[in-house]
């Protein structure tokens, strides 16, 4: 069991997502920065489908009833046990010891993994919270969460994974609806800089900048995925994240590659974002590199 002393603002339990009920309109949910959660899990020796805590807001404190290995990952994250320790590395924590997870000024999402994983009851095949439909709930001070079994010990601490470089440039493949945009509009999309808007959340990152309106407005509702860059009639793009509706009615000019979705999710309102066009091979190489980076041991 872990006991939450301070819960941040809208922290939730998340795993890699719920993909078995998309056809019932159930969004995948899961970590908004999937690589950061995967890294935290890998650092503590968890399976890839283990659940962790996605922390939103500063000040998250907890204690564990058992000695465990923990790790935090995300943009500009660190933690304090007896001393301040960097993120993206594993730390051994004794039973009862208080742990504080620190989010920096530019952290949107921090991920905490505990060896054994957060063992809440899966719903529809996943432990991911999707709060709008009552799947899971926002964590509060005083909440307790069960942990899975773990045989990790102090010797499993001090592993490290190279943190993501959270810069402004993300890679995207054109389409699938790029033919609904004039060529100069598409070119502008891949050349220009956008600014992240405050209304961004787990559903999507809203962008401002020179409008890139499609030729024709809406299209028949069509399935979408995380990373899809939807462009509503006004020309202000939205990059879909984990909590996206399963279908959308706007043309998708480009799709952020899987390896870079976390970089989009972690941009703060007011920060810039640029899209660099890549082909599928580069997207696959990036995914392989990511998978490789997770093999700590």
């Amino acid at each position, binding site marked *: 069991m872990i006991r939450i002393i301070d819960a941040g603002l809208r922290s939730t339990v998340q795993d890699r997502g719920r*993909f078995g009920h998309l056809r*019932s*309109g159930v969004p995948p949910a899961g970590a908004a920065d999937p690589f950061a959660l995967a890294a935290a899990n890998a650092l503590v020796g968890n399976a890839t489908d283990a659940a962790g805590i996605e922390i939103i807001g500063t000040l998250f404190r907890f204690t564990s009833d058992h000695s465990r290995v923990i790790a935090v990952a995300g943009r500009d994250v660190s933690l304090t046990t007896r001393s301040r320790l960097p993120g993206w590395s594993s730390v051994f924590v004794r039973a009862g010891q208080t742990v504080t997870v620190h989010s920096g000024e530019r952290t949107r999402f921090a991920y905490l993994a505990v060896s054994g994983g957060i063992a809440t009851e899966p719903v529809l095949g996943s432990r991911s919270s999707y709060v709008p439909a009552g799947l899971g709930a926002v964590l509060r001070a005083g909440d307790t969460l069960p942990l899975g079994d773990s045989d990790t010990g102090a010797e499993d601490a001090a592993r490290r994974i190279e943190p993501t470089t959270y810069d402004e440039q993300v890679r995207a493949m054109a389409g*699938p609806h790029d033919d609904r945009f004039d060529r100069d509009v598409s070119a502008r999309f891949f050349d220009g800089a956008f600014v992240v808007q405050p209304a961004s959340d787990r559903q999507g990152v809203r962008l401002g900048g020179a409008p890139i309106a499609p030729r024709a407005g809406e299209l028949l509702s069509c399935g979408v995925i995380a990373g899809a860059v939807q462009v509503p009639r006004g020309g202000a793009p939205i990059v879909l994240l984990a909590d996206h509706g399963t279908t959308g009615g706007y043309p998708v000019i480009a799709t952020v590659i899987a390896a870079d979705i976390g970089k989009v999710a972690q941009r703060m309102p007011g920060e810039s974002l640029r899209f660099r066009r890549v082909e599928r091979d580069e997207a696959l190489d990036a995914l392989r590199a990511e998978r490789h980076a997770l093999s700590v041991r």
Partner: protein
Amino acid sequence: MTPRVVPFGEGALLVELGTEFQENVVDRARRIAGHWENIFTFGPAVPAYASVVLRFDPLRIEPAKAETFAAELLGRVEFMLVTPTTPRRLVEIPTTYDGPDLAETAERSQLTVEELVALHSKREYTAYFLGFMPGFAYCGRLDPKIVSSRLERPRERVPAGSVAVADGQTGVYPFASPGGWRLLGRTELAMFDPGAAEPVRISAGDRVRFVPQ
């Protein structure tokens, strides 16, 4: 348009079957999705009116290969055997017609409120697909006499259970959310229950009727 398969990022494909609503196209989309999920078992699929998104793990199945499989499905969807299913279920939605857009929609359609309620509730709809949010079924088609363009300004909050119409379609908002459909009434019936054996009240392919209360 000629149906086609286009990449949707590195781990999904978009199968485009057309650009406008046609009953037989919706059916094709559903068959392709079912085949991808249940026969190929490559990953989840999301069918909609005239398209299907097919997902797969690109580190397990080479994207070019996935594309070949998808194109092959597209080629023979016409001839795919429709698995004999149980007779299509009829789902009845008890509805109180007192929505904030009822009077205005009647007026736009040059109908009385009673006529509008009768036109909406006497018709049996088909649930074409689910999307947008858990349990939201896109049902149609509305009687063409009902003028149902979307609201110019979407509401910031549509209450859960709202029975709504838009562009020839009708549906029920399972949860409170922003929305641009016109609200004709409401139902007390829960549209999504994650604890139930069948979490959604309306499944794709169901027949749907709204029963005035």
